[in-house]
């Protein structure tokens, strides 16, 4: 129409129409596309939501609530979307909650961890929740972790408290400031209300603090115990009064306590230990000042024991020295004290072993006393006179006799006891420094002596009785038996103490020849049996006994002694008894002078026995001549002349003895003989001692004895000669070998002297 009107051409019209058609199509297409896009968007949104939902569900570890239904009802996309959105919202909310929970737990964990170990593993920035895993499982896991941590925390707290209490008690015992100690460990431990630091570090430090304190405690405890021990010793040593000891009772009672047992507050504090230490040093000072006193006390104690058991204390010299040393501070007194104590213990032990024997000795001595009393009593001629108390003495005498009868058995028993004792111990049993066995032997000898004496007296009495009887026949008077004589002799025979006995024995020996003298008539008859065995064997016996007694020391000395007694006996035979008479009284007087020379052995133990035997051997030698003594003194070389020196060539001696009757040539022969000995010495004997002059000097006075007047001259001359010879004789091996001779002038001067 329009077109008609317009008159559009047909072609135009067609073109227009086509255009219209095309444009319509285009609009349509555009709308369809739009719808399509919308749908696609919807689907996309649903898918997205669903995906998110699924993630959340998986993260929370839950089954997805919404199962995808979009396939079935595809036409209702909007509905679907509407359904899914709330679900998603809810899930999101839950997730958020969950995350918060996680965060909370994690925060706690971190806090605790932080407390436990400061500054290490966890730091705050690290508190990130893993978004992808928020499942219950994880949550529970975290909770467990939290619990564990909480438990650990409480444990630690407890430990810390424990430590604290230990520390407290230690500090208390050691007297230290507890607060300060723990402050040093960690300041937070100090406030009782606030939280305590429980980190590893703190615990470690507490541990070490405890350790340290424990060490200190043990150290101090040791020290205290040491001090306590010393203190006890010192108390003991010095008898400190209980009152003073009481103060330190708490210390000394801990002397054996272990570390745990010492809990008393302040007992190990510095001040207390110092205090105890002071006390100990005070005691030490006291002890040092008292030490000398103590040593002396101990010594006197020991001496007392020795005295009681008749032992000889060996300590004297050493002790003087020791005391000096203490005074000069050279020796530790404690050490000496210890030594003395040791000695005391030993002495006590020995004393105990000696006890039995000592008892027997006491008995024996008592018996001896009774014996001597009895002797005295027997000698008393008036004993039967009825006086006051006579019946008592009679009784005593009776008892004494019984005791005396038992004496030999007693001595035997004692002897065997002592011998066993000596054998067991390997040392000699000394009684006041004298060997008991030798005492016993001496006693036995003395007994024999007395026995003989008694016999002799009996004989004499008989004879006297005869004489009296004769006199009576002649004059008709009857003198009372001579009392003075027996009285004079008596005391010497009696037995005193140990020393007295030894002397009296010597005395008895010397005395034995004496009683013969006033009775020259008796002499010959008496001498005769002695030649046959009485006197001779008696001497022999003695020297034998001496030999056994002296044992070690006397084996050499004993032999010549024996020989000399033989020789002496020989000379007795040669000389007539008449010549001996005028000189004999001197013998006794001379002997004591000679004796010391015989002390050839300095050994103390043997000294006693030596003294005993030598005078014995000497008696026969000395009796024949006074000159022997005179020359001895004049020449002043007594020692060289003593008869002991080795009569290794007894033959020469006996030769000179036989020549004794002719004095003048005798000297010549003797001297010659001496020279001979000198010359022949080496080939003849093994003995290399160049002193064979000794026997000759002895023989000289013996020979000259028969002619007293000229004898002196000859003897002196002889002595000079001897001296001179002596000079020549004494050369050492070296001098001899070197051919060394003393210049002549010297010899001459000696001769002139």
């Amino acid at each position, binding site marked *: 129409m329009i077109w008609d009107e317009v008159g559009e051409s047909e072609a135009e019209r067609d073109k227009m129409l086509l255009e219209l058609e095309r444009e319509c199509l285009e609009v349509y297409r555009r709308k369809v596309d739009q719808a399509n896009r919308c749908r696609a968007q919807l689907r996309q949104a649903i898918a997205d939501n669903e995906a998110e939902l699924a993630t959340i569900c998986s993260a929370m570890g839950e089954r997805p609530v919404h199962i995808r239904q979009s396939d079935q009802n595809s036409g209702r996309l909007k509905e679907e979307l509407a359904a899914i959105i709330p679900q998603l919202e809810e899930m999101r909310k839950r997730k958020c909650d969950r995350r918060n929970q996680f965060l909370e737990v994690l925060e706690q964990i971190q806090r605790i961890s932080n407390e436990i170990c400061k500054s290490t593993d966890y730091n705050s920035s690290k508190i990130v929740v893993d978004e992808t895993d928020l499942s219950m499982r994880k949550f529970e896991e975290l909770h467990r972790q939290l619990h564990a941590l909480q438990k650990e925390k409480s444990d630690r707290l407890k430990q810390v408290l424990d430590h604290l209490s230990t520390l407290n008690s230690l500090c208390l015992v050691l007297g230290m400031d507890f607060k300060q100690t723990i402050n040093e460990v960690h300041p937070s431990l100090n406030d009782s209300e606030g939280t305590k630091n429980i980190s590893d570090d703190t615990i470690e430090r507490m541990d070490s603090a405890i350790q340290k304190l424990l060490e200190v405690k043990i150290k101090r405890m040791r020290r205290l115990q040491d001090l306590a021990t010393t203190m006890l010793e010192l108390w003991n040593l010095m008898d400190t009064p209980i009152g003073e000891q009481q103060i330190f009772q708490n210390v000394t009672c801990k002397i054996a306590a272990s570390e745990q047992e010492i809990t008393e507050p302040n007992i190990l504090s510095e001040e207390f230990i110092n205090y105890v230490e002071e006390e100990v040093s005070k005691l030490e000072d006291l002890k040092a000042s008292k030490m000398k006193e103590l040593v002396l006390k101990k010594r006197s104690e020991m001496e007392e024991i020795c005295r009681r058991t008749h032992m000889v204390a060996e300590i004297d010299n050493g002790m003087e*020295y020791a005391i000096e040393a203490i005074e000069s501070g050279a020796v530790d007194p404690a050490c000496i004290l210890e030594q003395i104590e040791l000695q005391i213990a030993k002495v006590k032990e020995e004393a105990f072993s000696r006890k039995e024997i000592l008892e027997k000795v006491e008995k024996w001595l008592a018996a001896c006393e009774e014996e001597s009393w009895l002797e005295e009593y027997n000698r008393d001629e008036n004993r039967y006179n009825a006086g006051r108390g006579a019946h008592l003495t009679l009784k005593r005498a009776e008892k004494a006799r019984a005791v005396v009868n038992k004496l030999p058995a007693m001595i035997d028993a004692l002897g065997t006891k002592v011998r066993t004792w000596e054998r067991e111990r390997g040392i000699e049993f000394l009684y006041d420094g004298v060997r008991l066995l030798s005492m016993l032997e001496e006693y036995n000898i003395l007994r024999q002596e007395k026995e003989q004496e008694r016999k002799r007296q009996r004989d004499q009495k008989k004879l006297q009785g005869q004489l009296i009887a004769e006199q009576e026949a002649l004059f008709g008077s009857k003198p009372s038996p001579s009392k003075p004589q027996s009285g004079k002799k008596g005391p010497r025979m009696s037995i005193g103490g140990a020393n007295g006995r030894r002397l009296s024995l010597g005395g008895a020996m010397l005395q034995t020849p004496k009683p013969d003298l006033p009775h020259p008539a008796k002499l010959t008859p008496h001498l005769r049996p002695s030649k046959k065995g009485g006197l001779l064997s008696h001497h022999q016996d003695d020297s034998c006994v001496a030999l056994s007694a002296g044992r070690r020391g006397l084996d050499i000395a004993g032999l010549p002694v024996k020989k000399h007694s033989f020789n002496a006996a020989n000379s007795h035979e040669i000389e007539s008894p008449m010549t001996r008479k005028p000189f004999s009284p001197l013998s006794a007087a001379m002997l004591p002078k000679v004796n010391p020379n015989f002390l050839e052995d300095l050994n103390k133990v043997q000294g006693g026995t030596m003294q005993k035997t030598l005078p014995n051997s000497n008696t026969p030698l000395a009796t024949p001549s006074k000159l022997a003594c005179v020359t001895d003194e004049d020449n002043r070389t007594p020692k060289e002349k003593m008869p002991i020196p080795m009569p290794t060539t007894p033959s020469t001696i006996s030769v000179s003895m036989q020549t004794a009757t002719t004095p003048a040539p005798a000297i010549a022969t003797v001297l010659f003989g001496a020279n001979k000995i000198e010359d022949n010495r*080496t080939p003849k004997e093994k003995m*290399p*001692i160049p*002193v064979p002059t000794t026997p000759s000097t002895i023989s000289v006075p013996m020979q000259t004895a028969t002619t007293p007047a000229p004898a002196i001259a000859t003897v002196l001359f002889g002595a000079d000669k001897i001296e001179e010879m002596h000079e020549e004789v*004494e050369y*050492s*091996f070296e001098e001899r*070998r*070197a051919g060394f001779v003393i210049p002549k002038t010297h010899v001459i001067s000696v001769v002139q002297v």
Partner: protein
Amino acid sequence: MTAVLPTSAGRELSNPPSDGISNLRFSNHSDNLLVSSWDRTVRLYEASANVLRGEFMHAGAVLDCCFHDDSSGFSACVDNTVRRLVFSTGKEDILGRHDAPVRCVEYSYAAGQVITGSWDKTLKCWDPRGASGQERTLVGTYPQPERVYSLSLVGNRLVVATAGRHVNVYDLRNMSQPEQKRESSLKYQTRCVRCYPNGTGFALSSVEGRVAMEFFDLSEAGQAKKYAFKCHRKSEAGRDTVYPVNAIAFHPVYGTFATGGCDGYVNVWDGNNKKRLYQYTKYPTSIAALSFSRDGRLLAVASSYTFEEGDKPHEPDAIYVRSVNEVEVKPKPKVYPAPPP
């Protein structure tokens, strides 16, 4: 000859003197051994190595010798001379003369002097540092009562034993007169005197198998300690044979001492306890001299006939050096602890 003795006698030194040995001494500084002999020589051995280090020929028999230090020594000769021997150079010179053979020589470290004793009945002191020539080396001459037989020194004390059994004790600081004049407590000729290492006394031996232990202390208590004992004796078929005791040597550590006699035995004694500690197996002939080394580990033994029975055939002279076992010389503990000497 070595085969004769078991090894227990000790090692025998090679190149021994050809005649009697008069003395031997160990050095104070080493194990060197100085030996004087009647064959007119003084020999220096290194004992541990068994080497003869030096030999000095004299105009006469040498009766004694001693060390000065490790490089020199002194000798006493029968030709009346006292000589100084220098080991490094092998030279010798005469320090001075006596009027008779010189029997013994000692060197005092305390006084720095040589002391000689002679059969001319004098004692002479010499200063070895003085220039050569008798006028300057001689310090003093001190008359003795008899011929000097033996000398011994300890610290400043000098003990002189002479014939006639005299014993004089001097203080080296005041030689004008003896500090003590004594008589030997033994009855026979003195053979040897030696001071205790602790300086409290001396031991003295005689020709009659006996040794006396004496003390310087003159107080009664001090003198009470002295004693004498027998040794070097033999008892055969009731007959006793007594031998001279030629030598005494004290152990430097323990103070025990060895004695040697003409019986060929060496005995070791503990003087404090009065016990014999040990007896070595018999040597072929008399023991002429003994010496302990400075530490007491070695003992030199001169087994050499000492002419006690005149000229006669005898075993060859030999020197044995034996190592000393501690048991042989250590004092056995006493029942009571020994009081300090």
